[in-house]
């Protein structure tokens, strides 16, 4: 009977320990806000007539993507980070753009952009190199 109690108590402790470890964050709210601001600033710099231009591989045409809203989720990519912003094309269809960002001095810069292409992100997440912020 004692062994049953021990197992149950261990299970309870494990249940508390798992989410608490996951909830621990290594990126402060200040940095998270700075990352969001840097992404917004980067988008604003590359806007052409209020839209981001990109080349559609299928049609070969330059298409416009209008910024709508930022994703709150921030992913960790080693020492770098991955953020996402939702855009809307001329057809009203949502198109996500993933921004790979790195720290530079006290700010952050975008070093890679993936437009409407989640393949890379999925591969990196599949290999465990991109994870949720802890």
């Amino acid at each position, binding site marked *: 009977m004692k062994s049953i109690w021990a197992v*149950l108590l261990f*299970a*309870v402790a*494990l*249940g*508390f320990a*798992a*989410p*608490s470890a*996951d*909830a621990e*964050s290594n990126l*402060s*709210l*200040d940095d*998270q*806000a*700075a*990352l*969001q*601001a*840097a*992404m*917004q*600033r980067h988008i*604003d710099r590359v806007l052409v007539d209020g839209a981001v231009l990109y080349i559609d591989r299928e049609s070969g045409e330059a298409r416009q993507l209008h910024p709508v809203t*930022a*994703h*709150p*989720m*921030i992913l960790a990519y080693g020492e770098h980070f991955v953020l996402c912003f939702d855009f809307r094309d001329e057809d009203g269809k949502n198109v996500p753009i993933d921004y790979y960002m790195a720290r530079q001095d*006290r*700010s952050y810069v975008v070093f890679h952009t993936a437009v409407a292409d989640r393949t890379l992100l999925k591969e990196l997440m599949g290999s465990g190199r991109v994870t949720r*912020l802890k």
Partner: protein
Amino acid sequence: MTGSEALGGNTRGPTRPRWSRRLHVRFLAIVSITFLIITLPSAWLLFSYIRHADNASLTARVGNLAARAAIAIDRHQAYAKPTLARDLLAPLASDRAFLCAELRNDGSVASAIPAAQGCVSGQSGHYVDIPIDDQGDWTLRIGFTDKELAEALGLEVMLGVSGILVAFLAAVLAGGVSYRFLIWRPLNRLSDTILRSARSGKRETVQWGSRDEIGLVVDAYNSLVTTETERERQIRQSYQRLQTSESALAALNQELELRVQDRTSELETAMRQADLANQSKTQFLWSMSHELRTPLNAIIGFSEIMSRQLFGKIEPGRYKEFADDILYSGQHLLKLINDLLDIARIEVGRESLVEAPTDIASLVAETLRVIRPLAEEGGVQLDSAIADDGLTLLLDTTKMQQILINLLSNAVKNTSSGGDVRIDVRIDPDARVAFRISDTGAGIPADQLSQVLEPFGRAEGPTTHIHKGTGLGLPLARRMTELHGGELVLDSEFGVGTCVTVFLPAARVLANSGWLPAQPSYASP
């Protein structure tokens, strides 16, 4: 602990188990722990994700608003226009998380919200610096707080914990009620029934209509009770049959005992009658023998006178032969009568010993002198191995000599010419005195050994028809030996010879000088 476990052969009833061992405590403990294991980590996980998501939303919101404000300042070149700058920063204040904003140029504040205050040093919150121009001279410092999120999360946690608590109480209540109605009641009824059965000794079944597992247990118990009741009935019947059989057996035993008593009584009566008849016979025989001996003495005396021709020669000579025959027959008859008288006296207990110290060497020598003429007449070699002096026994000398004469004469008569008859006297290892008379005669068949020890029980053999004895010599010797407290043992091998040993008890030895116990080389009882 159930009632049956607690009984343990004690009909006083179960003792109440410790609270931690009670079934409902265990049941509720398992329900509670299982509930907590499932709900608490889940709630903890949920609240963690909520906090995480709220923080992410907050930072995304603040970051984007701040960035848009910075972009607007830059776009409108409001660096040297504090009023325009404040207007552009003013929308930030619509956010509840907003604390302050400062437009800075190389560390000095050009414009701030709240105006004239900006971000107060030491104010608790989070701060983010956003570069505005490309040269990095101007920055926008935004202060914000997650206090509202924490308050909201606290409220959510409180509500969540309250919900969990209510659910927990509901689960415990439901578990307790379920336990009471589904398990405790039938179990208690079963326990009470078992207790009543144990106290009264009368097996009872339990009435329970449920068809669940408890119902199966009750059914199994009822089946057991039915089976045991039937078996008890059968045992009782068997016991009654056994009692009946025992009574019949006792009656039979009693009847048998009565019959045995009757038979024993009849047998005792018959034995008494037989003894009386035997004594009457012996008395009659003794009387008749006595009465016969008197006229026989006259016949023998007169025939001896005639045979010896004491009063002149008898003519013709044939009358003398008749007188010799009468004398011989009379003597034989007298011998027969004397032996019969001796046996009869012994059997009726009138014979007693006249004991006197007897030198055995002399007794044997004298006996041999008596027998020697008979042996010489039959051509039989007579030997002895007797110490010349030393052994003296307390005996009835006459009867002991009669024993030896009877045995030696029998041996001589049953031994053919050229045979040997030998008498040895020794002390056996048990200190008894053994008189051993052996011959090389025809021997006695094994099946006739016991017969020759009885009166007139002659053995059938090649010399029987030649030497017809009275058939009383050996039985008389045996009885006289037994009168001395001894024992006569007959051993014979047909065609080889016979050996008769007379054992006398060691108590009869008065003197023994130079006699050593001999190694037994003959039959010994």
